[in-house]
């Protein structure tokens, strides 16, 4: 029987009933300390340190603090230092503050070439779905499961259902992968992919670069999906070739990887068709990623919504966001711009944003911040002179980290501040208590920075 990508990877990793083997375990400072404590309490070792990799990203300041012991915030310092001690004690390779290889965990995996097709990849972070862009089965886990994987290199797991979303045609001018996934979540809802491993397929996906594919898989969790995946192809292989973690026998790996894509006639529990050409630049207006409209639309009117639950949720969201129904999205004034996060902080994201602001100044009414996804991305961008473009435009150019995506470090919004952000979550308080987040693509964020409000990137120049 014809098999899909997910079924092939799942089948190859079944160790025992409901027990799957994990090829790569990524670790960061926030969700691991209690797991290491658990190992110590039970006198257990890490089974495969050679299949584990750690970095510090959530808590780290982006101001150039060179070592963990110099982090000003006491709790953040203790957490990063705990990670350093734990990795030392259990033999796990770590890229902490001061390392050229440090960065957001979902940026450095692909960058180092350790994210590969056909693998099972987990991390105590919901955006682990990012790695599915390489044709891997990758998903987020909780701290108890982190401990379980450290101790056993396996995970107790029920097989999820499968979904395929087929994107026909191609994205229009100015429309990006970020818009594609926001539009998809807007249509399916934030619980629409629940319980499913989702394969993104079709001509519009094939046409995207690896970095754009990562943006799409990254936000699968915002649609409630267990994992997001894209079949590997020549772009995937070219991306991995030559990276430090690439397989020594690359030809043999290619042979395995080429057998992974979903076969003709393979079945999925759910199939969805989307016309990629009909997608517009998107902007969120509310407090879930599903509360999203086209940039040409207006803030929706809750009274026009069919279900009482949707109406109430929309009213609460508008009150939090301080928005009035009927306001054109392009008339919403902004205080902050954040370009970064595991969704949109790779070199191509920075290039896109830089191309928009090159030779321009950002609005005097706002503060803009660009945070590369990793130290490598930062170095690459500086090599190309992108840092000068951003600085000349009035942006702050920072060291890498999760930064203002989640406000666990000094990069936070002040209460009431409104931010156009290339990150993944517009939840209440996500970027700082009382902060208001609008999710957009890097191009849209850059143009919004210049104008001080949202613009339709297709018509703006």
């Amino acid at each position, binding site marked *: 029987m014809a098999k899909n990508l997910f079924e092939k990877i799942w089948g190859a990793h079944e160790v025992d009933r409901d027990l799957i083997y994990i090829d790569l375990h990524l670790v960061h400072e926030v969700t691991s300390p209690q797991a290491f404590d658990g190992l110590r309490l039970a006198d257990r070792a890490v089974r*495969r340190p050679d299949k584990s990799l750690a970095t510090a990203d959530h808590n780290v300041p982006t101001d150039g603090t060179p070592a963990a012991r110099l982090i000003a915030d006491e709790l953040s310092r*203790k957490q990063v230092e705990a990670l350093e001690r734990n990795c030392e004690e259990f033999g796990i390779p770590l890229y902490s503050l001061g390392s050229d290889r440090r960065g957001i965990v979902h940026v450095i995996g692909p960058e180092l070439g350790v994210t590969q097709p056909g693998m099972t990849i987990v991390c105590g972070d919901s955006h682990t779905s990012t790695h599915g862009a390489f044709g891997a089965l990758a998903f987020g886990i909780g701290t108890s499961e982190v401990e379980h994987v450290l101790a056993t290199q396996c995970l107790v797991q029920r097989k999820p259902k499968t979904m395929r979303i087929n994107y026909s045609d191609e994205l229009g001018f100015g429309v990006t992968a970020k818009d594609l996934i926001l539009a998809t979540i807007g249509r399916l809802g934030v619980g629409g992919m629940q319980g499913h491993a989702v394969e993104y397929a079709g001509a519009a996906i094939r046409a995207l670069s690896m970095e754009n594919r990562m943006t799409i898989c990254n936000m699968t969790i915002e649609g409630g999906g267990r994992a997001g995946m894209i079949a590997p192809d020549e772009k995937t292989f070219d991306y991995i070739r030559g990276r430090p973690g690439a397989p020594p026998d690359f030809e043999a790996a290619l042979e395995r990887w080429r057998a992974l894509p979903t076969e003709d006639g393979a079945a999925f529990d759910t199939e969805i068709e989307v016309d990629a050409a009909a997608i517009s630049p998107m902007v969120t207006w509310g407090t879930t990623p599903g509360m999203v409209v086209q940039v040409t639309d207006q803030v929706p009117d809750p009274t026009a919504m069919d279900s009482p639950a949707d109406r109430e949720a929309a009213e609460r969201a508008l009150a939090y966001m301080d928005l009035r129904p009927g306001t054109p999205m392009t008339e919403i004034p902004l205080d902050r711009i954040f370009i970064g996060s595991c969704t949109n902080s790779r070199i191509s994201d920075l290039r896109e944003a830089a191309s928009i602001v090159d030779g321009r100044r950002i609005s005097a009414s706002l503060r803009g911040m660009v945070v590369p996804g990793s130290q490598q991305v930062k170095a690459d961008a500086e090599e190309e002179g992108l840092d000068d473009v951003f600085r000349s435009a009035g942006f702050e150019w920072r060291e890498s980290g999760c930064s203002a995506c989640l406000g666990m470090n000094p990069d936070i919004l002040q209460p009431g501040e409104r931010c156009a952000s290339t990150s993944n979550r517009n939840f209440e308080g996500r970027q700082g208590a009382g902060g208001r987040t609008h999710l957009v693509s890097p191009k849209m964020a850059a143009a919004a920075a210049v104008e001080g409000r949202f613009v339709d990137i297709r018509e703006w120049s």
Partner: protein
Amino acid sequence: MEPIEIIEGHVALLDRHDVDTDQIMPKQFLKRTEKTGYGQFLFYDWFRSGEIELEPHPILVAGRNFGSGSSREHAVWGLKDYGFDAVIAPSFSDIFYSNCTKNGLLPVILDEEHCREVAAAGEARIDLDDQTVNTKDGVFPFEIDEDIKHRLRNGLDDVAMTLERGERIDDYEAAGKADSGPVTTSL
């Protein structure tokens, strides 16, 4: 983890859909390296602004897609530490559901109408063996994976159980099936 047999008592209601874990346990409390003491931080912003009130009853009834977003297990530690032993909702986010089962917080899926009936009854008795939620007004059966039920019912430690299957893991690795990936220690 304490074995779960019966959970009974008053019911607290959080009548909202898509409640994300950023609300249940805001980020500033994720810097702690302990596993205990999170109850005081539960719904930190919503409680302090007076937006919601929840009594620490044994049972919480919530809206669909409860626990969406971040994988932070701190959300479950907070709910449990605050006093909840079970959460009843029409649906849960996948990671949150799994986190509940690792910490003895019983996740119960009932359709929305039945959730409302349980909340309206004000008191309920959840019987894990029978897989039922019982109120003065009715009996509502629920589904739960047999394996998860067994672990919750007996308060079993997942890691210890998997280590008992260590030979299978050895066999898998010995067959060379685990050798295709990168070796992170030699990067």
